[in-house]
């Protein structure tokens, strides 16, 4: 482990972070809400610490990153980004304790969208802008961004890329890692641009359109409005956001191939087919349940349910309705969807469609094996055999995910939180979704939870975003031995 290399790279990330902090400062210059001083100090601290780490740890860093250094750098980068990203909240006086600021920032960068703000709209435009912006940065990933802009990361880049990009295998679109990272960000920015335009045309003002675009494309879920998307009561906006949440929950490599080639790539991708089928079936069930049990029209029932299904499945967490008032069957289905999440290589969180799909296939394989005991039946994906290593990796992650879910919800219960809230709060933060059930439902927030509970949940968010291993490996004593 080379700490000098670690700090050197984290220093660069701080500089990038400081650069992004200039944007809320510009917002404040427009809205004039007296936040500039706090923001300026945040920028100064972040930039200065970045420069300092960079200068002190320069020197002999021109070598390949080892596997474990890659993991350590990504984990530290996220912890450091969360720490420095919380400064604007604290220094502008929007939040007055570190626990809340850390929770809100972690929820931002990990694109969770759970909030401890009780009255969102009383906060300044600049702070709410920063809140959405953290989601946008975290969505495609701060490491992927730095791979795209820092060419010298090339050699060890694959280690960093693998540690941050979600999914069982990270595929490269172009020979060089920096090219791949740049393409992913280009697709991300392109889709964001289209959404921004559509939301603006749909009647949002530029500020709201920007904030919502940021949190849609990141599958984050922060909204500058207390009532989230319900505020607008505009079917066009709801459909636009549904569509872009769905896009953001699909694999960005696939988007790139589709944009370059043609639409048939989408239907050839088994994960995408599974993802879209899951969305449609869930929507169908919930539409039916709502239509049957409430006085809503069929169109409204369909619109509400597709929005909510996509919002939860892609782990965004926007709301157009208080789904806690829906029948329990609909709520339970949404809770299950929280565990599945979007596709590999998307900005979505949770276990990911591809893993669930492969595990399902493995289940059917075992079934066929009973019928043909001597048959060799490999698990195939896209016409290729899934290697036993990948399979066991998926099983291990699946199991760890559930174990962490069990332990974290048990801890919450020990702190005196009720059953439904404990379970759903952990499911929603571990899956980077946002709203839960019980006392942390779509119209409520996380402010009332005990401080220890907030820390547990913010760790769950980071574990979920970095797919557990990247963060967990730091706790293994062997990791630190020479």
């Amino acid at each position, binding site marked *: 482990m080379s700490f000098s290399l670690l700090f050197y790279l984290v220093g660069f990330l701080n500089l990038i972070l400081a650069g992004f902090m200039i944007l809320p400062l510009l917002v404040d210059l427009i809205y004039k809400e007296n936040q500039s001083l706090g923001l300026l100090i945040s920028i100064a601290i972040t930039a200065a610490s970045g420069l300092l780490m960079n200068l002190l740890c320069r020197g002999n860093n021109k070598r*390949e990153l080892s*596997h474990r250094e890659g993991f350590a750098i990504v984990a530290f980068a996220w912890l450091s980004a969360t720490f420095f990203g919380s400064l604007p909240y604290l220094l502008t006086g929007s939040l007055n304790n570190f626990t809340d600021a850390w929770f809100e920032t972690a929820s931002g960068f990990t694109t969770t969208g759970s909030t401890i703000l009780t009255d969102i709209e009383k906060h300044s435009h600049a702070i709410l802008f920063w809140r959405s912006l953290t989601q946008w940065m975290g969505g495609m990933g701060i490491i992927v961004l730095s791979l795209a802009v820092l060419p010298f990361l*090339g*050699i060890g*880049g*694959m*280690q960093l890329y693998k540690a941050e990009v979600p999914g069982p295998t990270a595929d*490269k679109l*172009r*020979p*060089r*890692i920096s*090219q791949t990272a740049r393409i992913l960000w280009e697709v991300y920015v392109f889709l964001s641009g289209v959404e921004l335009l559509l939301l603006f045309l749909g009647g949002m003002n530029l500020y709201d359109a920007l904030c919502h675009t940021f949190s849609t494309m990141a599958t984050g879920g922060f909204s500058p409005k207390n009532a989230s998307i319900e505020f607008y009561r505009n079917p066009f906006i709801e459909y636009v956001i549904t569509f872009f949440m769905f896009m953001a929950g699909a694999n960005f490599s696939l988007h790139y191939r589709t944009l370059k080639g043609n639409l048939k790539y989408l239907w050839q991708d088994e994960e995408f087919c599974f993802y879209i089928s899951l969305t449609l079936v869930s929507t169908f069930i919930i539409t039916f349940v709502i239509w049957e049990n409430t006085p809503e029209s069929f169109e409204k029932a369909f619109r509400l349910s597709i929005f909510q299904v996509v919002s939860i499945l892609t782990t965004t967490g926007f709301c157009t309705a208080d789904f806690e008032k829906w029948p329990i069957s609909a709520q339970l289905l949404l809770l299950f969807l929280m565990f599945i999440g979007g596709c590999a290589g998307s900005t979505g969180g949770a276990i990911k469609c591809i893993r669930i799909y492969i595990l399902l296939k493995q289940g059917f394989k075992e079934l066929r094996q009973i019928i043909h005991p001597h048959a060799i039946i490999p698990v195939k994906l896209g016409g290729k055999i899934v*290697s036993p290593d990948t399979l066991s990796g998926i099983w291990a992650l699946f199991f760890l995910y559930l174990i962490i879910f069990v332990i974290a919800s048990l801890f919450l219960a020990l702190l005196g939180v009720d059953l439904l809230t404990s379970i759903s709060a952990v499911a929603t933060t571990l899956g980077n979704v946002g709203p839960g059930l019980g006392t942390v439902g779509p119209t409520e927030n996380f402010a009332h939870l005990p401080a220890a509970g907030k820390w547990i949940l913010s760790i769950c968010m980071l574990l979920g975003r970095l797919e557990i291993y990247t963060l967990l490996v730091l706790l293994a004593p062997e990791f630190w031995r020479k």
Partner: protein
Amino acid sequence: MSIIIIGAGEVGYHLAQRLSQEKQDVVVIDRDPEKIRRVQNSLDVQAIHGSGGSISLLRQAGIAEASLLIAVTNSDEVNMISCLVAGLQNKVPRKIARVRDPDYSALLPLFDKDHLDIDLVINPDREVVDMILKLMEVPGAVRVADFADGLVRMVGLPIQEGNPLIGNSLGEIRRKYPEANTLIVAIQRGGKIFIPKGDDVLQVHDLVFSVSARDNVNETIEILGNKRRTIKKVMILGGGLIGLQLAQGLENRDIQVKVIEQDEARCLEIAEKCHKVVALKPDGVLQDVMIEENVGEMDTFIAVTEDEESNVMLSLLAKKLGTKRVITLINKVVYSPLVHSLGIDVVVSPRLAALNRILQFLRRGKILSVSTLPDENAEAFEAVALETSDLVGRPLKDINFPKEAIIGAVVRDSQVIIPGGKTVIRPGDRVTIFTLTSAIPKVEKALTVKLEYW
């Protein structure tokens, strides 16, 4: 613009590593998922699992935009077919294939524009055979590289114990032999290579690189204290493709050759294809045959079996028994720092030879030929002095040339000039330059030539 490499073996892997370090876009294809994983984990290149002969896979690898295809799998047939398939997909500007079987590689029309259309066919075995034959011409040398169509020769000579030059500085040596038409361009000491100055003193176990006209090489060897002796007896261990070609080549040079080969059929083939070569088939213990056939009396022992570990062990045994020089085939790059300290005189590697050959081919611009030195920290190459170059028109002592590089020889109208401080280089001269890898950018600047890969 990208480079597609088919085959992620030792050659493919190191090529990919080298080319990606040179900021080229590289795609590697291999059938072995383990090799693909190794490439994916350690190199900044794209790695694709599958067969290099498959059209759909080549398309996926971006054959449409590729500027170069290098096929270096273990199978000659796959390499040739890959080039053929790639040629059908896209007129890839350049194609390189490794072809080992002499039956194919001798059939030159096969590779021309009308047939397979392969620009460079490399035969690693042939490269190794040529290299060993060249070493045979210069007794005592552990490296030989030719420049300017063979007019200039660089040799690497070890300074052994008892050499009278030990303790002398290069300046003193020059005063002692004012007539010598040779220049010491580099010294490798303890694994490190450096460009010596006049006050650097020779030490025991130094490896001295010296440049001279080819006709003066023997004189150089004498000055550097190695006795001039001709090689008469050679024993070769391993009668595979390399062993056989080597035996034939040495036989043509009137050298007595004994080949030890375990396989009787191979022995028969060697006996059939050679006239005076003695093919030996050991029954039981190989070492006994070596001793029985007087390995200690041999001028050179060459171990070129497929099993590199036993190559090393048996070479050490031969050395112990009194063989004057041992040449050993080792393919694994990881072993290379180890072998010289063990006492093996020369290491040859077909894979490294293939790698060097491809890299030479890819150099572009006014660079005429390149030779990469041990551990790849230094390079010797030949270039044409351009009119725009800083080197031209002034005496060398007035020129601000990088300290980590040196001009070894100048060829003008087929005349070899070993340069001194007063030498003036004229436009059109062919200069042989020895440089440490770190100084390449500076040398490029001085030459106004880019040493980049094509």
